[in-house]
């Protein structure tokens, strides 16, 4: 922040409209440029630039040794990334889609997450696993999963998901720089949303583990992350017509979890709704509701409610709008927060 007055500081890039996809691309580019041990690997990440074009141009800029097309084998991609990390590299792995990450779960759970612990700190796993996740794009079967709960239940992992263009850049830079493994969940339906953004703005690099209040409010807190953040912000705007002034907390990092920001908000408002796309049962919202209840019980005016995807296999594209938490379902939950008492 102080560099604004320093005469030697380089000129900042002007803010201009950018997509989340562009911000992610820039974060990968800058990480590759900043650290020669950073290597990007995955299916179609090289010549094609990834099926979502997140790695567009990186192979041309840094060469196939640093940005590598791999065989079509997810366990192999992550398992060899483990070996590369042991060798001293900092792999950034792309799983092409959420459900395509499942073949790599064994490597992730038994090796990536545990290696630092079982080697007593001598073999850290500075691996970032980028996964486009969530629905809302009309994807065919197995292309719309929200798989965060599987990862959250695995000690040793960090789980991060951006909701804004600026956070996409900052959180990815921070994830790649982390000496511990990060599951970096990219909300694929936010890839093409634009915002005015400059990578040189200092506030674009938030630390991992810190939530942010996206919209201050006094009536109730919407606790959410990733693709559901814009939904909650829209719901909060609509709620003003009902006389509710909703606060929206964007978690950004699900693990580590920012109890401080969440509980400070709930203590102010006394009511909370957790909103996410993935299934509710034994999901992220269950954990959040429990933590809020344990820490803020005497501040609560109503039970913590959850608005989540149903406990069903992800439905066909024509039906996904009924499954995904939308503005109306969020407002319906807010209405059930025992206002009459």
């Amino acid at each position, binding site marked *: 922040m102080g560099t604004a007055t320093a005469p030697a500081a380089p000129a900042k890039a002007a803010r201009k409209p950018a997509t989340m996809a562009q911000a992610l691309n820039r974060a990968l580019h800058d990480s590759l440029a900043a650290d020669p041990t950073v*290597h990007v690997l995955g299916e179609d990440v090289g010549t094609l630039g990834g099926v979502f074009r997140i790695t567009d141009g990186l192979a041309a800029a840094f060469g196939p*040794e640093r940005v590598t097309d*791999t*065989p079509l*084998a997810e*366990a*192999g991609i992550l*398992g*060899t*990334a*483990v*070996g*590369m*990390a*042991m*060798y*001293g*590299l900092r792999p950034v792995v792309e799983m092409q889609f959420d459900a395509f990450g499942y*073949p790599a779960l*064994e*490597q992730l759970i*038994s*090796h990536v997450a545990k290696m*630092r*612990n*079982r*080697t*007593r*700190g*001598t*073999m*850290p796993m500075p691996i970032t696993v980028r996964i486009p996740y969530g629905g809302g794009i009309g994807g065919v079967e197995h292309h719309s999963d929200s798989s965060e709960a599987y990862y959250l239940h695995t*000690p*040793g992992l*960090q789980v991060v998901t951006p909701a804004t263009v600026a956070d996409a850049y900052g959180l990815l830079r921070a994830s790649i720089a*982390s*000496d*511990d493994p990060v599951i970096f969940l990219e909300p694929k339906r936010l890839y093409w949303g634009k915002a005015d953004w400059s990578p040189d703005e200092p506030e674009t690099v938030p630390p991992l*583990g810190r939530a942010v209040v996206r919209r201050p409010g006094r009536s109730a807190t919407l606790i959410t992350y990733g693709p559901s953040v814009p939904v909650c912000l829209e719901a909060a705007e609509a709620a003003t017509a009902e006389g509710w002034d909703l606060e929206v907390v964007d978690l950004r990092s699900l*693990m*580590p*979890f*920012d*109890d401080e920001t969440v509980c400070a908000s709930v203590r102010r408002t006394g009511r909370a709704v957790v909103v996410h796309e993935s299934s509710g049962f034994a999901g992220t919202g269950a954990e959040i509701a429990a933590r809020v209840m344990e820490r803020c019980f005497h501040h609560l005016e109503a039970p913590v409610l959850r608005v989540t995807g149903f406990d069903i296999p992800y439905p066909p594209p024509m039906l996904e709008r009924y499954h995904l938490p939308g503005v109306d379902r969020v407002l319906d939950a807010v209405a059930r927060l025992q206002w009459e008492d």
Partner: protein
Amino acid sequence: MSVKSTAARSSRGGAKRRGGAGAQPPLVQLLTPEGERVEHREYSIDLTPEELRGLYRDMVLTRRFDAEAVTLQRQGELGLWASLLGQEAAQIGSGRATRADDYVFPTYREHGVAWTRGVDPLNLLGMFRGVNNGGWDPNENNFQLYTIVIGSQTLHAAGYAMGIAKDGADSAVIAYFGDGASSQGDVAEAFTFAAVYNAPVVFFCQNNQWAISEPTEKQSRVPIYQRAAGFGFPGVRVDGNDVLAVLAVTRAALERARTGGGPMLVEAFTYRMGAHTTSDDASRYRLDDERVAWEAKDPILRLKAYLTKQGVADEAYYAEVDAESDTMAKRVREGVRSMPDPDPMSIFENVYADGHSLVDEERAAFAEYQASFEDHQEGAAR
């Protein structure tokens, strides 16, 4: 020496396999079960008397250590032990083929390989006693901790070798796995990645004939070494109870990897003389006749016969090695018994690099809980 032609020749031999045990494909052998030195047209070895005696000593010490560990388990000092009995030549021969700068990825049975890498045998016992998940620093001897998940480490080895290839370094990697692991998808993917990136890794399969209760026939309809051909690199079967042949073949494979030749699969044809682990009962699934037949191919006896015939070693030397092995076993026994119990608070260490809110909170709460418990005990004692 030409490795490619070995694969080609061996695969012709493999076609005869279904004819029964007598029609096994040829394997590389430099020392017969009777201790006769034979020549192989592609693999040769010329060792000094000191080196030959060294291989004998390695195998005897390894077997003695292994036997001590079995005893320690029976006496309740270890929770479990996976014996390597019968596989000494496969492990010592291949381990002695590695260079200090090579990196080794073992399974949980590679006690002999650990010995060749300079890992203190005592440190192997920590995980089997239950005090840690691996009691050595992998980077000290370039010997990774034991991997218990079957076959996973072959991918780590391939990735490590890909790192070496990116650097243009001339080290190599060796990945150990078994006949059971050869069915794992991870192993197939490790073969694929290693081949595609021409990674300097030797896949060393100890085919000890049994994956707990399942014979190799339940894993593969072709000899395991022949699988390499489908991935585009050579495979060779070596007599896994012939330490000279294993050393020669593994040396050649590692040197090939170091000089840009890419991966290679070595199948060491051997036998697990003991049960899978101390929790297993091999009599439920195999006949003792089979084990007795393999006793005639014992790796230590055949080298000893050769050494004696050649006049390289005598009874005095054997007695000296036996005495050394007893001393080592005694040190291991005493070391295990005096191994300190781990500190309960250590379970919160090295979960993450830095402070982590969840783990820190649980650590603090647990410390408080423990402290209150100790107060209570002290109070009760008074």
